[in-house]
């Protein structure tokens, strides 16, 4: 029995039957619905030309979020409202404030990125009609434009609030009607390849554990910002998918006095506030991770579980002493995050197991947290190297220290020798040069298109040095090439 995917489009329920569950939303909307406004610019979620907005029922309200549809599989639409660029103009052809502002400010040249930019701005418009420059830069970090130099688009974003809006009220009731209380299950036979595709989206952890036991080799799909590319770039056939984004237990954030526990299925957008409150420098890292569209889909659990050596969150989680709660039908175990990564592409996840939660201990008042990301481009880039430090400073001494490093090895790692060089040292006569040498000695990174081995080492040593300056209160002299200097 195969379910139909149901979503709202222009106020009507749209039903899709018998479809390959790895068909992307973009391909469906362009080819089947004939709405060709959104474009494919990269097919990997890095240019934003395919941006559409999804409305989702959250606590009785409809929450709208921009997503990259070129790597989003069609079942993600189930139970949601889809807003495309064509949805924005009124029936008489009159333009939405976002669109009109883009026209009036000369925000389009070749026009190819424009529908995606309009939709990214539409999400912004729903949240903030008078955005400041930082807010606009964040909202558009995932949308590449090669023609305008962005100035006219920024001008449009900052004037869109001055137009009269005819936006209809969100239709929460209609969305409520298409929620389902049982897992969405799709089975599709491909006429071309004679392959069968199975997809299921359990809603409870129990169901998820049962499914994992039955199909331990199934592809686990969360936000799809990585798995999507297996299909669109590596052209893989994913014949069996378990989508964990609907599992309620995985979507919880639980805060206690001692720690913060984040469900593996929580998107970066939803965990940003909690992480920001944990520490601003970790928050800034999350802000620079991907783009709005990527953070709206991508999950921290997925970022960990796929084991990338350059995943942005791992060094900070290692430094903070995070643990992972991994579970299966047979029980639950908890392990330090650094032990989860065994080798490149190999994680400590046994058949039938799922990464369930990430537990992050809260820093104490004596903990100094520093998180640094080095990349070619400041926003929306994958890090060449990443360094995070939690130093417990008591009575002028480094009482304890944890260092997490990304980009210097085949897996995210702790830096035990460097930690050893610093642990117990008095700040007054701390030899940071020796610690920096220790950092260099314990890693042997590769040279690739993101950076040379030498630069990776030098830059992470510099980051450690910066952390030291923060402990000693000299960080004022440091300056930061980021937000602080963006306005001259």
């Amino acid at each position, binding site marked *: 029995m195969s379910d139909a995917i149901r979503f709202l489009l222009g106020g009507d329920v749209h039903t899709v039957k018998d479809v390959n569950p790895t068909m992307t939303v973009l391909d469906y909307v362009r080819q089947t619905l004939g*709405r*060709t*406004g*959104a474009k494919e*610019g*990269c*097919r*990997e979620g*890095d*240019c934003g*030309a395919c941006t559409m907005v999804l409305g989702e029922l959250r606590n009785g309200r409809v929450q709208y979020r921009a997503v990259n549809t070129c790597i989003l599989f069609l079942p993600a639409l189930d139970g949601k409202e889809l807003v495309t660029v064509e949805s*924005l103009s009124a029936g008489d*052809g009159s333009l939405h404030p976002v*669109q009109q502002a883009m*026209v009036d400010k*000369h925000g*389009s*040249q*070749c*026009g*190819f*990125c*424009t*529908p995606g930019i309009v939709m990214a701005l539409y999400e912004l418009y729903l949240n903030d009609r008078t955005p400041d*420059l930082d807010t606009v*830069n964040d909202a*558009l*970090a995932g949308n*590449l*434009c*090669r*023609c*305008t*130099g*962005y*100035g006219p688009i*920024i001008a449009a974003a900052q004037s869109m609030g001055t137009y009269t809006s005819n936006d209809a009220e969100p239709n929460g009731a209609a969305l409520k009607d298409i929620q389902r209380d049982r897992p969405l299950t799709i089975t599709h036979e491909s006429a071309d*390849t004679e392959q069968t595709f199975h997809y299921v989206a359990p809603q409870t952890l129990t169901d998820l554990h049962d499914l994992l036991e039955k199909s331990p080799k199934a592809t686990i799909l969360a936000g799809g910002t990585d798995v999507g590319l297996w299909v669109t770039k590596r052209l893989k056939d994913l014949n069996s998918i378990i989508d964990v984004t609907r599992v309620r237990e995985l979507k919880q954030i639980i805060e206690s006095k001692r720690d913060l526990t984040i469900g593996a299925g929580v998107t970066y957008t939803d965990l940003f506030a909690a992480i920001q409150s944990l520490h601003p420098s970790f928050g800034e890292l999350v802000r620079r991770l991907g783009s709005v569209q990527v953070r709206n889909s991508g999950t921290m659990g997925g970022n960990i579980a796929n084991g990338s050596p350059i995943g942005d969150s791992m060094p900070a989680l290692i430094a903070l002493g995070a643990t992972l709660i991994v579970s299966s039908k047979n029980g639950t175990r908890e392990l330090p995050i650094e032990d989860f990564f065994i080798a490149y592409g190999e994680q400590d996840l046994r058949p039938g197991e799922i990464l369930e939660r990430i537990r992050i201990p809260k820093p104490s008042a004596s903990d100094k947290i520093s998180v*640094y990301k*080095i*990349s*070619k*481009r400041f*926003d*929306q880039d*994958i890090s060449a190297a990443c360094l995070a430090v939690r130093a417990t400073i008591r009575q002028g001494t480094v009482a304890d220290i944890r260092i997490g490093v990304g980009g210097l090895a085949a897996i995210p790692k702790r830096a035990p020798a460097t930690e050893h060089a610093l642990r117990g040292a008095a700040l007054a006569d701390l030899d940071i040069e020796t610690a920096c040498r220790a950092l260099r000695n314990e890693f042997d990174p590769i040279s690739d*298109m993101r950076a040379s081995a030498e*630069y990776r080492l*030098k*830059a992470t040593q*510099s980051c450690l*040095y910066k952390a030291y300056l923060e402990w000693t209160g000299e960080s004022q*002299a*440091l300056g*930061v*090439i980021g937000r602080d*200097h*963006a*306005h*001259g």
Partner: protein
Amino acid sequence: MRMDSSANPKIRGGVRQALTHDSAAKHVSGGAIYIDDMPEERGLLHLAFGKSEIANGKIVSMDLSQVRSSPGVELVLTADDIPGKNDVSPIAGDDLLFADKELSFVGQSLFVVAARERDLALKAAQRAEIVYASGEPALTIARASERGSVLEDPQVMERGNAPAALQHASHRLAGKLCIGGQDHFYLEGQVCHAIPDEDGGVLVHSSTQNPSEVQEIIARVLSIPSHAVAVEVRRMGGGFGGKETQPALLAAAAALVAVKAKRPARFRLDRDDDMIMTGKRHDFEAAYDVAFDESGSLMAADITLSSRCGCSADLSLAVNDRAMFHSDNAYYIPDVRITSHRFKTNTVSNTAFRGFGGPQGMMVIERIMDEIAMYLELDPIEVRRANFYGKSPRDVTPYHQKVEENVIGQIVQELTTSSDYVHRRDEIKAYNSENAFTKKGIALTPVKFGISFTARHLNQAGALIHLYKDGSVYLNHGGTEMGQGLFIKVAQVVAEEFQIDIDKIKISSTTTDKVPNSSPTAASAGSDLNGMAARDAATTLKARLIAFAAEKYDCAADLISFNDNQVLIGNNAVPFERLVEEAYFERVSLSATGFYRTPKIHYDRDTHSGHPFYYFGYGAAVSEVIIDTLTGEHRVLRTDILHDVGKSLNPAIDLGQIEGGFVQGMGWLTTEELYWDDRGELMTHAPSTYKIPVCSDRPAVFNMALWSKGRNPEETIYRSKAVGEPPLMLAISVFSALTDAVASVGAHRKMPMLDAPATPERVLMAVEEMRSLAAEAS
């Protein structure tokens, strides 16, 4: 001839008005149709290339049986299936549609698969079983130089005797600079759609800047006359030079499939394939040896440019010529020699990219200016001023063209004041002395850019205008729209000529069956050429209408004029559409072609001398940057630009070109890094690895203005100037400011070895070099 008209407020959309792009409302609502948005016809085939996995060598065997039997595959074609010539090159005959023997780069096309769905074609293409005999590839300039692998002999542009002058110099410096390439990263990748006709011909919608060339190449490959091939393009999703010659490869493959299968075929390259298979901006290595006096004024320069052209000629000879043409930028060099080496390498064939070699040439002389200033401990702006072209004899370029009506001095003067350069330079000095870890830098760089195709025959254009009985106007010309606003500018010219509202003018697709033998929309010349051609057509029609009206209304022709959607005939005012209808009934021809060719230009490539440029475009920029000396990360804090577009046809469009060009140039010189592995495989082939500027990279303070005194001294279309390419080179100010910031670490005692792009890594390495020099000195 009234050339200097200012905006006429009586009509909507004449010249000088800041109209929005003609497709703006369609862009924002998703209604603008790009080629892949066209409805899919029944039986449509989707295509994919099979590609070479080696950079140099031979195919020993190629077994395509698995490809052919792959699900959804309808047709697979190789070199053996080409009825005409296996040649998709623009000039030299050295670009194959499908390689069949020798392989010359990773990603070279070997065969095409046609399948019912795009992904099925892509999957099938991976299933080829190919046995290669790999050779040692020459991937770099150094390796090609060792092998003597060149496209042609070194070219020398020379005036005076530079080697002799260098010998007698009081001050002399030598140095080197590497300048990286750049991917176009148009948001719409290469795409075309071919529809066979009943006579064995084909209509191809191609995202191309050069429809006539695509037409000719398809005819050559299919061995049919050009008249059997029509190529049409309504708009491109960006071009930047990357769609000047590159679209022919896809279009030829699609046309071949369409004609063979008698079915429509669509070919859209995946982003990764697009970046791997199509050419880019040439990377250069430059060396210089210069002599100068105490004021920093150049006495002689001996400049050597070496570029990586890739595996074939494409447009590389002209690109490298233009690099030579711009090695002087805005500066007079009394004795000068520019030597240019064009290396043939086992990498994708590099091609046109906004600036066409000019930016690379300009980078070298700007580095020289900075280095002289540092050597003499002068403000770089003083050294630049001391070297600007001036009055005779300081007005002759290395190619012997005189620089007439040079305005760079005035522009730089105004910009220096408006940007508060002098004061800010002092502030930066103070900042740098107070801050240990972050350093700032500032630089002002000028741009002088030659306008015209250096291939003389390309400086021509055609247009076609129909007047319909209801007074509506159909406009067509050989120029293509890639976002630069050409269509609206040319329509504004026609509105101005007829003095009618622009809404009455229909803007239409560029197509080879309306205007034949068109030149590529390139060299910044789109509005210069097509604006004039459209104006010529309008003038012809106006003359016919005037002659008709003079007779009908018995009025002297010189008392008839066009004004506010009317034709004034003596004391009568007749609505435009009524006169057109009356003319029709009197059997007046209401359709006309127009033609233009650029006057005054000539060039002798043997001696590299002549008058290759009709005029020059000018501009200048001041950029201020900050660097983190611990990590090399950097930001542009502020940019001020003053640019000369003559008398603007459309100020909004022109400002858009300036800002967009600047940011694109900034990307080229900072974050955009192309990286090949040692097998010759491009590793930066998608936006995840190749980083063009994003919104937050734009300088937070960005002041930009058109030069108010601008007016083209030549009789160009309404005295405007070309604007497409020159602003890209304003971004050299960013590179120069970064160099300045790095140099401050070494107290400006030595020129940092900073190459482009100035990634955080290169900046940090240059900073470290400054630090170790400072340590040695102390």
